[in-house]
């Protein structure tokens, strides 16, 4: 375990270097590729999926909220599996059956999922409603919405439908890889932070900030919806 620290450090450093959070969505170069692509392109779609996840701060904020109070590896694995199950199902279903959704509304729901998780982490449901909804089911349901968000992003580009399934699986796998890398980085940070008292002390502030980010994104997406 001790020896692993150096490795972990390098790993986290690499993660950090590769994360350039500048915009959510698909950037110009990627867009050019998507529009010009013909046929099967597993590798590029895998890359786009991973990049989308690593630079997609709304997905990441939600995941940070989800794992915030999860200390056991097994629990983290279960929750992330539920999330993965949810978003993979709707990503594949949404693109294959060509279901078009309003990107702003889907992203607004994703923003709401961040508010929900911050609220949940503060024990809001017990305090106000006197009842805790099943958190695993909630993660699954929000996973479904995140998947529709991913599907909508990919569908915004009228890319070639040849080799769609393979490309889609590549994109989906990329999403999981991106999620794994980003989560790995967050977990390493949390692992260090949790050893200090400041983790619990600041957890109220952290989750308040999480909710604030959720409110901000919600306002951003709803404004986009009403203006367009």
């Amino acid at each position: 375990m001790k020896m692993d620290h150096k490795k972990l450090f390098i790993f986290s450093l690499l993660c950090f270097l590769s994360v350039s959070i500048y915009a959510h969505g698909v950037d110009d170069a990627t867009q050019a590729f998507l529009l010009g692509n013909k046929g099967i392109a597993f590798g590029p779609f895998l890359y786009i999926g991973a990049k989308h996840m690593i630079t997609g701060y709304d997905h990441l904020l939600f995941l940070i909220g989800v794992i915030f109070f999860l200390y056991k590896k097994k629990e983290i694995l279960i929750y992330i599996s539920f999330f993965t199950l949810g978003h993979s199902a709707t990503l594949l279903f949404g693109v294959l059956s060509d279901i078009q959704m309003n990107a702003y509304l889907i992203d607004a729901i994703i923003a709401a999922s961040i508010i929900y998780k911050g609220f949940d982490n503060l024990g809001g449901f017990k305090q106000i409603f006197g009842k805790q909804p099943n958190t695993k089911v909630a993660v699954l349901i929000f996973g479904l919405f995140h998947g529709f968000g991913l599907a909508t992003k990919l569908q915004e580009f009228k890319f070639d439908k040849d080799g769609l399934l393979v490309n889609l699986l590549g994109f989906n796998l990329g999403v999981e890889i991106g999620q794994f890398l980003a989560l790995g980085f967050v977990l390493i940070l949390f692992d260090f932070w949790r050893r200090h008292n400041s983790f619990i002390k600041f957890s109220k502030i952290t989750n308040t900030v999480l909710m604030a980010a959720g409110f901000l994104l919600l306002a951003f997406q709803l404004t986009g919806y009403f203006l367009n």
Partner: protein
Amino acid sequence: MEKKNQLVVNKKQLLKSIVIAFIIGGLVFVTAVLPAEYGKDPIGTGKFFGFSKLYTNENSNQLNFKKIEFKDVGSPSNIIKPLEANNPVPVKQFDLIQDSITLNIPAKKGIEYKVQIRKYGSVKYEWHSQNKEIVFLDFHGEVAEKNPPKEVFYESYTVAYSNNMAGTFTAPFKGKHGWYFKNLSNKEITITIKLKGQYKLFN
């Protein structure tokens, strides 16, 4: 068994957290995100901090313009080309000069800029919009006529959407040749044209 390090927050603190989160989110949204992303500046912070400069109108950045077709090129087919277009090539062209012209095109408006060129006079040109905004343009020429009709004939050399273009132009007839630029965005656009060749400016 499940020892959770859940934090304990009472109802009052919880409500406080929600209110604070809502205010922070709302404040950042109104002061920064709204001006930068949507070009709306309700309390003037976008202008004060310069966030508004980040806003670019979607029209000016995306290439989703309508397709340009034959019917968009030149004057309507019922207007015939004046006979003056067949006049002989002059012995002498305009003297070689060069200029740099700056045009300010108001939002949603179009502006024409033309120079005089004699038949077969050659002019090098380049133009660009200052902040790379894409404009609609029609590079065209009108034949010099003794008695021009109400609706004049013009020939389009290039009709396009672009933010920059350069080339050499040899006039097919004596007359006014130049550009019509249309600003499609909600903001003023500055265009700089550079010319070098056998032409004369209108003054």
